[in-house]
């Protein structure tokens, strides 16, 4: 259909949309790559916990008068390290540790919100504002994304081995403590950046829905990683286009594209199983 290409040209005419698209695509690669390890370690809700912590961090920044995104990164980092600390010490309560940090982040945000006189900045953080990010945030997104892609490549085998069986990985000589630390830091950073851009309420979805779709179609670990990034990018572009042309919130439309895709994939897989059987 020729009308498709003219529509894209229209969207890309705007500088803010071009930047939004670049930032969106980078995060749509980085967040699902992190998501693979997170989902396979059964820590799916960590995105939620860290985005709530980021909300509290943004408020700390607003109140104490320094760059809110730095506040978000800082508090998100503290939250992520706390989760990892609790997870290591109380292995059976990994999920509980995430619930506690989620509550702590939300509680802190609720209390701090009372002290903020101008809440518009905070609203944009809840739902994200990918079209109005600062140069500093833009650079941070690029840096963190390339760090995540680099780590995913260099530590591919270690992350795979650790997700599969952390103890066996450790016995094979992999420095699991260091790798967990690096991974935790990157998770915290990317979640706080994604919170700012696609919205704190959306990050968790961007982390797990592409991975879930890949689990439906992937036939190997490598495929699951690659497909997760591809699904992420597809949801992002489709979501941003929907948002631009239909005037809906970008965060919501990204998630809805993902959910619809997941349902379609599951239906197709179900039908194929029937046919084969």
């Amino acid at each position: 259909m020729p009308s498709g290409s003219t529509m894209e040209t229209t969207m890309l005419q705007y500088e803010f949309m071009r930047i939004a698209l670049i930032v969106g695509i980078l995060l749509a690669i980085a967040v699902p790559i992190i998501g693979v390890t997170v989902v396979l370690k059964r820590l799916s809700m960590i995105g939620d916990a860290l985005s709530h912590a980021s909300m509290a961090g943004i408020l700390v920044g607003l109140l104490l008068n320094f760059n809110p995104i730095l506040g978000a990164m800082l508090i998100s980092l503290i939250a992520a390290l706390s989760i990892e600390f609790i997870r290591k010490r109380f292995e059976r309560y990994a999920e509980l540790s995430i619930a506690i940090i989620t509550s702590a982040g939300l509680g802190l945000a609720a209390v701090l919100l009372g002290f903020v006189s101008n809440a518009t900045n905070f609203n944009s953080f809840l739902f994200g504002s990918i079209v109005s990010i600062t140069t500093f945030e833009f650079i941070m997104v690029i840096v963190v994304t390339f760090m995540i892609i680099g780590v995913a490549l260099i530590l591919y085998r270690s992350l795979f081995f650790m997700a599969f069986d952390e103890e066996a990985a450790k016995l094979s000589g992999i420095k699991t403590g260091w790798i967990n630390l690096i991974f935790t830091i990157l998770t915290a950073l990317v979640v706080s950046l994604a919170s700012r851009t696609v919205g704190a309420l959306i990050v968790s979805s961007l982390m797990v829905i592409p991975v879930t779709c890949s689990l439906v179609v992937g036939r190997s670990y490598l495929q699951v990683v690659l497909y997760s990034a591809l699904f992420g990018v597809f949801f992002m572009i489709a979501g941003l286009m929907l948002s631009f042309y239909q005037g809906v919130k970008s965060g919501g439309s990204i998630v809805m594209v993902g959910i619809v895709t997941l349902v379609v994939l599951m239906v197709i897989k179900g039908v194929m199983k029937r046919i084969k059987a």
Partner: protein
Amino acid sequence: MEKTVIDVRDVSFSYGNNLVLDKVSLQVMKGDFFAITGANGSGKSTLIRLILGLLKTQSGSITVLGEAVASFSQHAQLGYVAQKGLSHSFGFPASVYEVVGLPLKTVFSASKRQARHQKIMAALAQVNMQDFSKRMISELSGGQLQRVLIARELILNPKILFLDEPTNGLDSPMIHELFEILHTLNRKNQMTVLLITHSDEQLRENITHTILIEDHHAVRIDHGDNHVAV
């Protein structure tokens, strides 16, 4: 000439106030097919985890391949298939080929691709699973998955293979096949095998030494059925 590969001396261990092992000693020689048996909760897994360095000894000493466990460096020489293996791997999205290749460091190296492939297929052949390399591990039966996890440990050709209740959840033909494989590794490849097992019938044929953990102590079971305290 017999050579001690595992030397456990007067090792005691408690979880908090719960004393599990009390002055346990045992020696495993090169080429042994060594079994540890005992009731549920008697401390078999704890003992194996102490030997592997996954738990720190509280008193006594453990040497593996001539090195103190605390500063052990020859990771590639030890293979370990944990007790949780099966349930833990359930539903994980990976192919058999990928899982067996995990200990090899050359994942994306194009030049080492062929060598890597041969090692993976050879390890799979040792456990009669060479036809399953493209399967996802979530599509395997318990016995097949157990063999894949053993193949993963075999790929670096370890000197000692540790298995914690590898027969759990397997039916008796599968147990038989597993013991055949372990026996071959032990006899033909001179691999020392140390396993924890309940299935006594299988114990008799291939196993060279058995230790029973009872009342926090290790009791050596002679294969003529006399109990001799160690």
